[in-house]
């Protein structure tokens, strides 16, 4: 192919591109919609449930303080520490629950796979920034809170290209 026709071809393709809609997620205003409520794990079948691997959620009424999540994290990020809580649960004799340091966590979700009591799940919350390192350490009380975020942008494909609708 000659030089001129190559340039014309490239220009033609570029001009066609002018008619295509913008494919940019305007992030703080728009947020991507995810599948489900975050990554979960079913210990009976041994298979996870698809979802975003975001911030964890701890169910205090199910946690037994068995430390399996902490042991799973030992070889990975060492982000989980077991701390004492001021709550009395009959399944949790030692009253210890995981505390997660998101400065270390790599969001692999293997702690969720390790939990046999449906106590630790992951949620769609990924906005975890903080002004201090201490602010990234989430105590069991903070992990109990269900995140409330509006995420509705999805990739839509039309004749004029893909957009985040």
């Amino acid at each position, binding site marked *: 192919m000659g030089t001129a026709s190559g340039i014309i071809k490239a220009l033609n393709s570029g001009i066609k591109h002018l008619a295509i809609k913008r494919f940019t997620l305007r992030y703080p205003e728009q947020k991507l919609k995810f599948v489900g409520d975050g990554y979960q794990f079913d210990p009976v079948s041994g298979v996870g449930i698809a979802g975003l691997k975001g911030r964890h959620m701890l169910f205090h009424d199910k946690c037994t303080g068995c430390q399996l999540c902490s042991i799973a994290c030992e070889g*990975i990020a060492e982000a989980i520490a077991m701390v004492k809580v001021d709550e009395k649960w009959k399944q949790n004799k030692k009253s210890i629950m995981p505390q997660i340091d998101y400065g270390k966590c790599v969001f692999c979700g293997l702690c969720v796979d390790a939990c046999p009591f449906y106590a630790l799940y992951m949620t769609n919350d990924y906005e975890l920034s903080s002004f201090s390192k201490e602010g990234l350490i989430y105590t069991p009380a903070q992990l109990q809170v269900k995140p409330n975020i509006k995420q509705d942008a999805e990739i839509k494909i039309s004749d004029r290209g893909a957009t985040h609708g």
Partner: protein
Amino acid sequence: MISKLPPGIKVEQKGDNDKIMTLNVGPQHPGSGHMRIIVKIDGDYIVSCDPDPGYVHRGEEKMAEYRNYITNIPHLERPVIHDSCNILYPYCLGVEEILGIEVPERAKYVRVIASELNRCVYTLYWLAIYGIFLGHSTMFMWPAGDRELLIDLLEKLSGARVTHAYFVPGGVRNDMPSNFEDVCLRQINYFEKRIKQYDSIFYSNPILKSRTINTGVLRQNDAIRLGSTGSVLRASGIDFDLRKKEPYDVYDNLDFQTNVLKSGDSYARSKIPWLDMLESCKIIRNALEKIPKSGSVRVKLKPNPKAGNVETYKRVESGRGSLGMYIISNGKPEPYRVKISVGSFRNLICLPYLLKGEKLGNMPAVYWSLNYWPVEADR
């Protein structure tokens, strides 16, 4: 005194030839990881070149000896976070062999889909940097934008945009979400339409052609002798793709072909990954047709699985060529030795060979066309 120095260290002798100049290119971070190339130039022409990797060496092989077969997963994918499914693939295949696990049929198809999506994600990132290396900023923006389509799919599938930690010995972590097939098919069709336009904007661009055609030519017998792999090998006219030659999982059921170009120059090396992406789209569509509609995707393992005194060498075709893992077990929960043999490291030996006699200005075009990923080569 000098003879007492260990062989790892050399005292540089003052050269008597003043014409030759030594130039350190790097260690900068061109979007991929630090890498230094020491070139000796005579005027504009490169006399010799000495690649100096190791700036991002983090000892993955040593780390793997201290962790058990499951907790090795998140750190073993770190060398190539864009291609994390493919680097975990040989590890999972190897561990499955030494533990004697049979993977469910549906999991094999899900693995193929995930690894092909990942190959495209890696190739787009690589192509974007190749564009910006050659001053073609449109080619940086388009792949970086289109990558979002596939990142979105992988995020729906595995729950993370990069570093998926999705493959485990015994299958995959979770099943596909409910409407994934439709979404995947729609986005892959659109994606294929998009990347076909790269031909007009990039590959038939006369400026790119004049910069890459006939620069850094790797002849066929040299490609064999240097042991190059992946797109570098296939651009030199050797039809070698492990997905065809040694089909793992369900690649022998799927309908695709390998792309081979004869010329062996930078242009061919930059075109092969793009042709592979078009082929990947075909594989994904084919796999979505043939996937069993239901079934388990993961075999339950014991908490700390142990293997006997066995060893295995498994290899897969990653985005950068053959990726092998040599796993030796000695009956403990941790592997005795894990050796990662990566395509980037094997292709690195071509760089001094290709750059000899080349103009300095052509160095980025040759260097990045080797499909080299510094972090993966250093491990």
